[in-house]
């Protein structure tokens, strides 16, 4: 047996000079070196393993730690958009529960808020960030990342059940979804957040008269325009609340075999997700990017792996529809009939795609049919965590994975 003999021996380069110092000083130096303080890259790596929700105290420990938190967040493990899930019982008193998912650390939280009074009416979101409740006597909405602040304003003039509600810049556009007794099912009203006033405006195009509600239309909005796509046909219109002009119809589908599609806005572009084949035999689920200005077809971003398509189907064999919630490059896709399984898609700036599967912790084994599930996404950084934590004691509970 060959032996390779190593000797790990103490030989300090400055041994000779150290010899000249008194013993006490040498002992001190030795102790200091022994106590390699946790700092620099090592501290930042350690912090990258700490979930954002637990990272606040670290900011106050010392100047070094404060800087290390900022540096770690920008170099090692950046904050990523959170998925927020509200469930609401369809039975009185319509108890709601609020859950949040942080993809940076792959953890779920339950947020323990007192039930806001407006939640006795159905909670909805028709595009990815705005949550609202429409009641005959008022319209409540919230747009902050954790929905801590709710705005209560007069309701729109037209009585509606399931309208399209989209935040476009400083305005909220409310369209369609009118109750049967209303004259104009295509009525559109705009709420101006700064002046706190409603304005009746140009109705939706007549071609939409049979599909003018959030049940049939998929909404995507940026700061200037709201897009509405008929989910079954792909026919799309857009509305500019500034100029109060409707545009379209546009046919945005790049493939004839798409039977269902939804849209969402990311940056200046429009992202479309489509189901190809037919509901009983879905072939593919694909994602495309379109130019947000010209609506020209950009490129195919990716195709959902078959095993994830199977997960979306759940226990059934058909996939009739999907919903998408997104923020930044993160997309959360689910089948409204099987909301327990989520498919997550992360799209990088360079165009790469990463698909994954995620169990929706908000949806338990109890009867899912008796609950409404509303998904939204938020950009969450330390500031938002601070506001959440500051809003009450025991405001969140970490869920065991």
């Amino acid at each position, binding site marked *: *047996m*060959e*032996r*390779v*003999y*190593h*000797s*790990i*021996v*103490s*030989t*300090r*380069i400055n041994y000779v000079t150290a010899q000249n110092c008194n013993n006490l000083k040498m002992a001190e130096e030795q102790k200091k*070196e*022994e106590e*390699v303080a*946790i700092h620099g890259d*090592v501290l930042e*790596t*350690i*912090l*990258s*393993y*700490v*979930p954002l929700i*637990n990272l*606040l*105290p*670290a*900011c*106050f*420990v*010392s*100047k*070094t*730690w*404060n800087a290390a938190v900022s540096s770690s967040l920008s170099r090692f493990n950046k904050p990523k958009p959170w998925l927020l899930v509200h469930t609401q019982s369809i039975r009185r008193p319509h108890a709601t529960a609020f859950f949040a998912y942080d993809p940076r650390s792959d953890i779920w939280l339950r947020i323990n808020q007192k039930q806001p009074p407006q939640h006795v009416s159905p909670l909805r979101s028709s595009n990815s960030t705005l949550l609202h409740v429409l009641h005959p006597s008022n319209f409540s909405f919230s747009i902050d990342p954790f929905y801590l602040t709710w705005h209560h304003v007069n309701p729109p003039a037209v009585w509606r059940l399931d309208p399209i509600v989209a935040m476009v810049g400083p305005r909220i556009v409310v369209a369609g979804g009118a109750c049967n007794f209303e004259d104009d099912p295509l009525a559109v009203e705009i709420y101006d957040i700064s002046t706190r006033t409603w304005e009746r405006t140009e109705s939706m195009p007549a071609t939409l008269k049979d599909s003018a509600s959030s049940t049939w239309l998929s909404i995507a909005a940026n700061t200037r325009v709201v897009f509405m796509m008929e989910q079954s046909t792909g026919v799309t219109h857009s509305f500019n609340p500034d100029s109060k002009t409707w545009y379209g119809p546009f046919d945005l589908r790049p493939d004839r075999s798409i039977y269902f599609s939804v849209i969402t806005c990311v940056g200046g572009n429009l992202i479309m997700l489509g189901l190809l084949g037919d509901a009983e035999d879905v072939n593919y689920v694909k994602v495309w990017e379109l130019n947000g200005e010209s609506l020209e077809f950009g490129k195919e971003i990716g195709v959902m792996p078959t095993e994830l398509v199977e997960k979306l189907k759940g226990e059934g064999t058909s996939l009739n529809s999907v919903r998408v919630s997104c923020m930044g490059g993160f997309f959360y896709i689910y089948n409204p009939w099987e909301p327990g399984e989520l498919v997550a898609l992360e799209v990088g700036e360079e165009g790469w795609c990463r698909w994954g599967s995620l169990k929706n912790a908000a949806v338990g084994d109890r009867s899912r049919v008796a609950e409404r599930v509303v998904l939204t996404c938020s950009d969450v950084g*330390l*500031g938002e965590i*601070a*506001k959440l*934590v*500051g809003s009450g*004691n025991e405001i969140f509970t970490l869920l065991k994975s």
Partner: protein
Amino acid sequence: MLLSKNSALESKDNEIFEVEESIAIQSELIKTMTTMVNSKAYVNERNQMVPEARCRKQANYHVEQNNKIVDEELSDWESKFFEVDMDDLHELFMAANYLEIESLLNGVTKRVGDFIKACKNVEVIRQTFGINNDFAAQQEEEIRKLNSWNHI
């Protein structure tokens, strides 16, 4: 017949551990030294002494790691291995850092991350890690205001 190479490592306390070479070279430092000895260019590096306890832990870590092939077993064993207090973790960290063993370092950093996650507030972190508060009262107040954080 293939003879397995063994390395003998001497620790600061003059205890000699025999470890399979494939395990020994998981330490980047030892790997470098092996290469140098083999090419007959042994250089007297500035080395710190590695106390006996640490060395033993290294050897154990790797032997066990290589034995446990099944993922679940490995992660169970790893969680038990790292279920030590802050002082032991610190020793492990220093040893892993000095010997440059990436897998051990990763395990330790994750565990320290868990410690921080478990700390309820700032004071607990300071106590656990022995850190002094070098914020001036005014600076601390400023940070709080900037971020309207009340419950830290």
